[in-house]
């Protein structure tokens, strides 16, 4: 017998709004709301797992799960073969290059240093510009790097811009808009087309698109 369709949800920021969408679809989400220690949670006819964003992509790509909900930021940073079929329009923000207020990031001939949690996005952006920069991978608060004189600018996710302002930074240029996306394993979409399309249709309707 075929196993149930498995859905991987990103823990944290997107989790609540994803569960809201599931409820709108008429799915019974009690297992998701009272997780306990279980890792695979039954939701309607589906099995749901909660995972870190980067792991959602790995699960989908390798076929351990069929459908995933994950932010465009994580998709842009990792590479892989899967279908990105739906923009849910939730968890909206953007990637941007930011630098200290009053400074001109692009001025001068010195090689600039850029701090980021997203080295692939940052290097892709500067390569497209044909600009040599030194990229430093930072795990925690990236805004700190220019304040400490470690970097000339940062590439990071910007929601409202208030964290930037509080730290004396401003957006120099927007890189790309971000929102939650639905991704699907390549073989799953082909071998379980009817089930997956049905789920996607209902999800799309719930997202009000």
């Amino acid at each position, binding site marked *: 017998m075929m196993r149930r369709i498995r859905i991987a949800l990103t823990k944290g920021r997107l989790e609540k709004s994803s569960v809201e969408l599931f409820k709108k679809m008429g799915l019974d989400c009690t297992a998701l709301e009272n997780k306990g220690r279980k890792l695979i949670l039954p939701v309607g006819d589906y099995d749901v797992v909660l995972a870190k964003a980067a792991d959602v992509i790995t699960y989908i790509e390798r076929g351990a799960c069929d459908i995933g909900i994950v932010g465009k930021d994580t998709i842009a940073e990792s590479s892989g073969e899967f279908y*990105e*079929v*739906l923009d849910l329009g939730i968890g909206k923000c953007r990637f941007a290059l930011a630098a200290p207020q009053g400074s001109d990031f692009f001025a001068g001939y010195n090689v600039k240093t850029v701090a980021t949690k997203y080295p692939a996005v940052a290097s892709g952006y500067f390569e497209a510009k044909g600009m040599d920069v030194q990229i430093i991978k930072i795990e925690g608060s990236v805004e700190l790097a220019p304040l400490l004189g470690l970097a000339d600018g940062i590439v990071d996710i910007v929601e409202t811009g208030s964290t930037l302002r509080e730290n004396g930074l401003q957006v120099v240029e927007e890189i790309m808009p971000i929102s939650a996306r639905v991704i699907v394993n390549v*073989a799953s979409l082909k*071998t379980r087309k009817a089930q997956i399309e049905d789920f996607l249709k209902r999800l799309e309707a719930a997202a009000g698109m």
Partner: protein
Amino acid sequence: MKINNKITPKGFRDYLFEESEAQTAVENRLSALFASRGYHSVVTPALEFMDVFTCPEPAIPIEQMYKLTDRNGRLLVLRPDITLPIARLAATRLQNMPRPVRLCYTEKVFKVNPGLNGRRDEVTQSGVELLGAAGKRADLEILKTAADALSVCGATEFKIEIGHAAVFKGLIAELDTDGDTVERVRRLIESKCYAALDDELDKLENQKIAGILRRLPHLFGGGEVLEEAAALCGDICGDALQYLRDIYDTLQTTSLAGRVDLDLGLVHSNTYYTGLLLRGYLFGSGVTVLSGGRYDHLLQQFGEPMPAIGFAVENDAVAELLCQQGAVDGGRIPDVLVFGEPGYEMQAVLYCTERIAQGQIAENSVFDSWAQSLEYAKQRGIPAVVRVGASIAEERI
């Protein structure tokens, strides 16, 4: 310097017991199938000149190839694809063979995969190439061979998917746009990335074609997608759509009905495909296990124009599925261990061959004492130990 003598490079691995048995099983089943259809096996070198894969334009992204140099400083690559070396071989070595030429192979291919996503850089592919044959007869043969390849590989259900390279190429030719845009659009269609595709297509001048390209990744499934495509495209790529209709309808009258789907959003990154495209999926495996297509202009690059079509099976993905299903064992435990007393060492080795001739697996004991031999047989679970001396005695364990 850090010494890495106990690990394998990233993307490379060892295959132990049932993994290795599963690989061999897949290879054997496929080779037998291909041979039964009149395909002849060939072996090409693991190292080729990079030019084979990059002239006149790169068929495989250059950054995905493992490179080294020969003694004269010329660039070599570990073959990232087998179709191109076979095209080289056919064009340069087989000019005088009567056509069509049917070739098959089992080879390793090497590709640099980004990151730590669990993908292997070294995988084995078994496949066929039917060279010097154009048209429906050849395409149907390849499709049926592909379906049979999937069916001999595993007990599970499978799905074959067909598309046509001329659909995307035909639409793109109508747009007057640059190569970078085309590649971006192609990638977005390939990954069925609907939202970003919309944004990209909005920038195009020719919104009629953009509208068709927008629908392209949605057009997968049964025969109904051809009707929608025909209504959308009108005259553009009408021949390709008509041809797919013909092939699809023909297959509906056979045992393949219900196992063949269409995907007009198949847009391969290998630039050499010109006609029918095919892919195969095994239920339970999350990856594409078979892919191929028609490449009528490729041999011309090597100075010997002829039409051709072929496909390759990803043996590693199939073998992994066989292992998961427990369809292979990791080699049988020997039926008997044979110990020769001092002075009878050679007799013991000869006695092993006697038992082997009876269809058993017999292992020669390399221990110096009977007690050690018994102990070893117990550890390994070997059910019987034979003592060869002046007489022959067997003890069950």
